[in-house]
């Protein structure tokens, strides 16, 4: 029986905060569209991170005050942003030189599906009447050193997003290093998926029910 008084899992903001905690000081980071954008709100004190947006800005700052947006200063999701002091603008070929050339340390992306091997599907359901749109996702997973995924654990229909094999068309194969969901943080290792942390009131058994692939627990060192 579900007790509605007990909060299960993390909010979107809490998920974003978990991701932010894992980004080392001094990193150059690209944030995808949607939940990944929230990560920028939670840089831990004492760390300096530089955000790249692939439409041509290194040093993306916070969202501007209402009414102060510039139509020509937007992020990859085409939302208003600001540029921090020390920022740089550049054209698209330079932007993807940063990405494909391996100069960006971490990219945080949304997901439709992630497989046990770290395969990512996040651009198309492959449905017949869907308009395929890929943007920069394939270039990011191919070129950025570390790929973090932030996503709800299941779809809005309750289907697992973490699966044995992706059924949607792939964005990249064996690219995801870590998955941050509303229920858990899961590391993608060579020998499988390992649960690093579970959200409040989430049990390993509950997590397994919500996951379409085998989950492993880290063996706790004896005290």
């Amino acid at each position, binding site marked *: 029986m579900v007790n509605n008084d007990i909060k299960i899992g993390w909010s979107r903001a809490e998920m974003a905060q978990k991701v932010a905690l894992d980004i080392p000081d001094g990193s150059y980071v690209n944030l995808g569209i949607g939940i990944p954008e929230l990560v920028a709100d939670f840089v831990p004190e004492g760390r300096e991170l530089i955000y790249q*947006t*692939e*439409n*041509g*800005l290194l040093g993306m700052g916070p969202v501007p005050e209402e009414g102060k947006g*510039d*139509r*020509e*200063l*937007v992020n990859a999701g*085409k939302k208003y942003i600001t*540029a921090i002091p020390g920022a740089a*603008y*550049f*054209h*698209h*070929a330079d*932007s*993807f030189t940063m*990405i*494909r050339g391996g100069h960006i340390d971490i990219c945080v992306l949304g997901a439709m599906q992630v497989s046990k091997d770290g395969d990512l599907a996040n651009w198309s359901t492959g449905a017949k*009447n869907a*308009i*395929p*749109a*890929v*943007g*920069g*996702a*394939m*270039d*990011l997973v*191919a*070129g950025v050193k570390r790929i973090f995924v932030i996503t709800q654990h299941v779809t809005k229909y309750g289907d697992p997003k973490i699966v044995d094999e992706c059924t949607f*068309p*792939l*964005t*990249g*194969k064996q690219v995801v290093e870590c998955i941050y969901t509303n229920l858990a943080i899961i590391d993608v290792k060579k020998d499988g998926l390992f649960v690093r942390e579970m959200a409040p009131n989430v049990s390993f058994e509950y997590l397994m029910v919500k996951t379409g692939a085998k989950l492993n627990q880290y063996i706790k060192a004896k005290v």
Partner: protein
Amino acid sequence: MINKQINSLSEAVADIFDGATIMIGGFGEAGSPIELIHSLIDHGAKSLTIVSNNTGSGHVGLAALIENRQVAKTICSFPRTANSKVFPELYNAGKIELELVPQGTLAERIRAGGAGIPAFYTSASVNTPLAEGKESQIFNGQEYVLEYGIKADFALVKAEKADRYGNLLYHATARNFGPIMCTASKIAIVQAKKIVGAGQIDPETVVTPGIFVQKVIEIRNPADESKLVEEELSYPW
């Protein structure tokens, strides 16, 4: 004397012919040369191949060009946005062709086209449906796919500042595809918010050197695309 400045929008696009390949700058509305696009609608050239990151919003700018049935094919990375209605309808009706290209590959194909490089290898799209049918090769143990440079007959680009030589400065993230599209097209047509006298742009700050630009026109107050979309306006007005 070299003077690339022209004074009317109709003159700016007059040479565009049916079947031409045209690169159009912009990432969404940032950097979209809306006045030049509307002038191309007035001009009426048909069966165009458009190379652009998106396919426009509402019923103005690039979306209006597509709605006016002047576009046979689009080469782009993200053909839908929150307000794109025109492209999805025509695409689902089989009335427009789409070549979907990862954004970085699109940028590099344009850069390569402008730099005289016919083809190159990239790891983007390996193991995905977008790599199907493409030649691939292993370098240092990693797989790459072969992609071809793109050249265009024309480019339509929006800049912040220009001079009569065609030297360009851009504004913020409106730069996006503009500089590389100027290099990859035979005739780069640029609308700039301000045309200044020769020598008034510091050579140290020039983003696009004038050699890559053939025509510049001053459009001091370009239309605000989002506002036009909000007001549900359609071009031609």
